[in-house]
């Protein structure tokens, strides 16, 4: 009864202070993360993410610091591509989103997508506009000093600023807005910096051997190199006769490939392909599967019948044959690969979601939502999906593994990524093409594929155990 507070106020404060009841999915995720297998798997995935993001700082032909005639330059940093910087921003914004407290998962996702989008957008749009500006007239004021470039560099952060306005609008009365204000300012600065950055030269036209040659000729005063002083695209043209298919040495800790590239460097950069193929392909499959499966489960009847035929068609064709067929007749690139693996992999998700929705649609709370006049999208995505998505997450975890396996299988068969995109399967393929005796081309990439697939499978198994009432904690 102190401070004139009534028991009711105290009670309501207590209720408000109590931890928010976590959703079923959140509980499953927490339970999963607590299991040993999942911890091991997550540890490897986090390691992979770090390797993918920091690859240019670990393996790079460009030195960190380069001194010629007393002139100091930092080639590694000026040669960072927009992918490198975007990945860095992705990691940072992911960490920011994780560390902010008191925000719902969806809003954290918005922050993540917004920051990453700003970085990618600023870096891809600005140089294009700058180029257009230069082409439109080198002497004109508008072109040469790049007012178009300024527009581009401004456009990206401004657009994302507007996008964030939505979040502001939704959150304005919550206590989180100082956070978001800071984030918005950060994003603005980020976009401006990245947009105005000098573009690195085209990696295909960079002469990687210039540093080694300068060092050999003793024209360079000093140089600080990355731990592995070779870029994945550095085929050591200066040393071509001795560079190919070298077993591991101190210089090349995992040997060299058939083209003279450093295997360790290629392995490091290949984590990007593995991660991205896994995420995007599974994402595409998940979205298609959830939409088709959800429709089948919720509407049933004729839609279900037609959907089941579609499911049967896609499950009748062995996926690897379909992938071989498509990769054989179309031009190969990483985007096609992701899309194709995604387009052929949605069947499992659709079946699971359909079963869940069939079960859930006759539940009382769905009836109530329908009776209250909730629009169909609201029922499907707000009421049914969060309650039916958990088993699909298990499948998605295995989906990551199988997407990576498919990619490396296709690359191994020579139907995968083009040679400029390093991938683990590609290194295995090189070993096969050269007789299979190069153990460093077999052991390391194979081990990497195994560890990654194993990690995702462990996470999947743990999640399945967490879902199973007989084994749940």
């Amino acid at each position, binding site marked *: 009864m102190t401070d004139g507070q009534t028991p009711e106020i105290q009670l309501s404060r207590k209720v408000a202070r109590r931890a928010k009841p976590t959703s079923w999915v959140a509980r499953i995720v927490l339970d999963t993360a607590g299991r040993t297998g999942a911890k091991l798997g997550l540890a490897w995935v986090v390691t992979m993410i770090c390797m993918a993001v920091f690859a240019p700082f670990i393996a790079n032909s460009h030195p960190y610091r380069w001194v010629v005639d007393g002139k100091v330059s930092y080639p590694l940093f000026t040669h960072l591509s927009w992918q490198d910087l975007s990945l860095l921003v992705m990691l940072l914004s992911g960490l920011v989103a994780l560390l902010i407290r008191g925000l719902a998962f969806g809003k954290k996702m918005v922050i993540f997508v917004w920051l990453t989008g700003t970085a990618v957008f600023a870096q891809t749009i600005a140089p294009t506009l700058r180029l257009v500006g230069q082409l439109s007239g080198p002497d004109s004021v508008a072109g040469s000093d790049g007012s178009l470039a300024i527009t581009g560099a401004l456009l990206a952060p401004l657009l994302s600023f507007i996008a964030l306005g939505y979040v502001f609008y939704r959150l304005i009365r919550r206590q989180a807005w100082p956070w978001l204000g800071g984030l918005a300012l950060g994003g603005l600065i980020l976009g401006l910096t990245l947009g105005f950055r000098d573009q690195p030269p085209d990696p295909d036209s960079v002469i990687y051997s210039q540093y080694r040659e300068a060092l050999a000729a003793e024209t360079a005063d000093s140089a600080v190199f990355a731990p592995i002083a070779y870029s994945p695209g550095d085929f050591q043209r200066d040393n071509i006769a001795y560079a190919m298919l070298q077993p591991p040495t101190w210089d090349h800790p995992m040997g060299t490939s058939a083209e003279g590239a450093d295997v360790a460097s290629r392995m490091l950069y290949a984590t990007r392909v593995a991660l991205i193929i896994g995420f995007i392909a599974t994402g595409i499959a998940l979205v298609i599967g959830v939409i088709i499966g959800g429709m089948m489960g919720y509407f049933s009847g004729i839609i279900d019948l037609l959907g089941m035929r579609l499911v049967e068609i896609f499950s009748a064709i062995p996926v690897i044959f379909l992938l071989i067929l498509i990769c054989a007749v179309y031009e190969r690139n990483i985007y096609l690969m992701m899309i194709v693996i995604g387009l052929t992999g949605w069947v499992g998700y659709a079946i699971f979601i359909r079963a869940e929705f069939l079960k859930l649609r006759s539940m009382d709370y769905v009836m109530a939502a329908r009776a209250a006049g909730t629009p169909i999208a609201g029922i499907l995505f707000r009421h049914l999906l969060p309650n039916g998505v958990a088993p699909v997450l298990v499948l998605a975890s295995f989906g990551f593994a199988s997407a990576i*396996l498919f990619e490396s299988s296709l690359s191994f068969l020579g139907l995968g990524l083009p040679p400029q995109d390093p991938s683990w399967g590609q290194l295995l393929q090189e070993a096969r093409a050269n007789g299979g005796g190069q153990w460093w081309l077999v052991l390391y990439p194979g081990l990497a594929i195994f560890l990654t697939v194993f990690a995702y499978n462990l996470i999947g198994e743990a999640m399945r155990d967490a879902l199973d009432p007989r084994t749940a904690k």
Partner: protein
Amino acid sequence: MLSYIFRRLLLMIPTLFGVTVLVFLVVALSPGGFNSAKLTLGGGMTQGEDARRQAKLWERRYALDRPLPVQYGRWLNRVSPVGFVMAGDTKLTAKQRDAVSLELSDQPFVRRDADLQPAVRLVETIAAYRGDDPIEVARILKHELATPSVEGTLRLAALMDVAEEDFTAGTDALATALGRLMNPKARALADRRGATVFGRPVSVPVKPQPGWSQADPRTFDFMGFSFSFRVLQREPSLADAQSRVLSELGIEVGGRDRIDFASPKIKAPDLGDSQRGREVSDLILEALPVTLLINLTAIPIIYTLSIFMGVYAAKYRGTVVDWGVGAATVGLWSMPVMWVGMMLIAWFASAEYPSLQWFPSNGLHDLQADRMAFLPSWNDEGFQRGYMLDTMWHLALPVLCTVYGGFAVMSKVMRGAVLEAESADYIRTARAKGLSERVILWRHSFRNSLLPLITMISGILPAMFAGSVIIEVIFGLNGMGKLGFDAAFQKDPDVLMGVVLIASLLKLSAELIRDICYAIADPRVSYD
């Protein structure tokens, strides 16, 4: 039960239809489409007479000049076992062929077998066009060939060219062939009267000059001087000339592709020919047993292993054994098959690098396998392993590769099923009766937990089928996977589509058989 099977079979029809649409569209919509194959021969097939002939052949085979739905319909008609007959597809039976050969080989007119074959083919085509009796056509042909007339020669030339696979067949070869076919008197007459086949003398082969040629010299007068020059001009299109002759003869160009919609009939499904000229169905019939051999050898091993692992994991639930089995199976399951295969080759098979060389690294049989006895034996030269052991020896590593990843899911399912059975009332009853744990485990819970394994067979069979692509490629076994893989590199659309179709068909049938087995094994399951 029967009605259920019937219903399932009916439902398979739209599914198969969808599969064919998907497979066809993937190839048809790809850059280059069906013609992309000729780009793969190093560009060597992109120009010249052979390339044009090949392109024409493909255009005809897939009706590439028609709209996409028509193309699909024709392809479906070709691969379907029930369909309509295309006019040009009318093939002579062996008996008819013999009769026609006999009729034509009558002296004095055809003497060599090499000349006889084109003549028989010609008869086949004319019979297909006109719907006439082949023997009658052969008689007319003989008469035409024996009668010296320029018109007859022309007519024959046109027909002969139709009998070739396309309209761009070299006139040179045609003239030579015709000259050989005709009797000497007719040939002499045709020569004397200057008969030509599309501008070429009948009996004197001339090297064809495709494209530009020099026409007659032209002259014109200018201020009293006469100038003479030759004009380069395009040769008249062969196809134009032929279609003119054909229309005079009352034969519709492309009539060979006409489909007889009036009489659908059951025919042999035609999966087409590979680029090397072999029938796809033959290729698949050769490849399928190899894949099935690997997989059917592997399945019993997988089942045995997974049953034991699953049962023991369930029996020692929560102990180190359970945990170890779980970790080992997930680990094995995660090992990429190409990695394991290459490691096995490097350690146990490779001849190039220091390895144990216990197993062969390539192929299904030894080179001398055909001369081996089936069973192992001893003779003067010591132990002979025989055909069977030789095959097993060759299959050891591929089967190992197939097996190691297979039992992860199965042992997990088996473990779950045994655990579920353990909590059933009859197990408690059995325990209450005082039965020994061994009897309870193997006689009561094990037998009742076998059911889920039946469902697994349909899942595991196609999965292994797919997995065998890499295994077959690594170990050089000519199975379905290798066939599809090689076809992918040669961009051989007929083989690719054939392999995918057959694989899908196998998978669908495996699912049907699974459901039927399930109903037989479990009396509680009823589909009616």
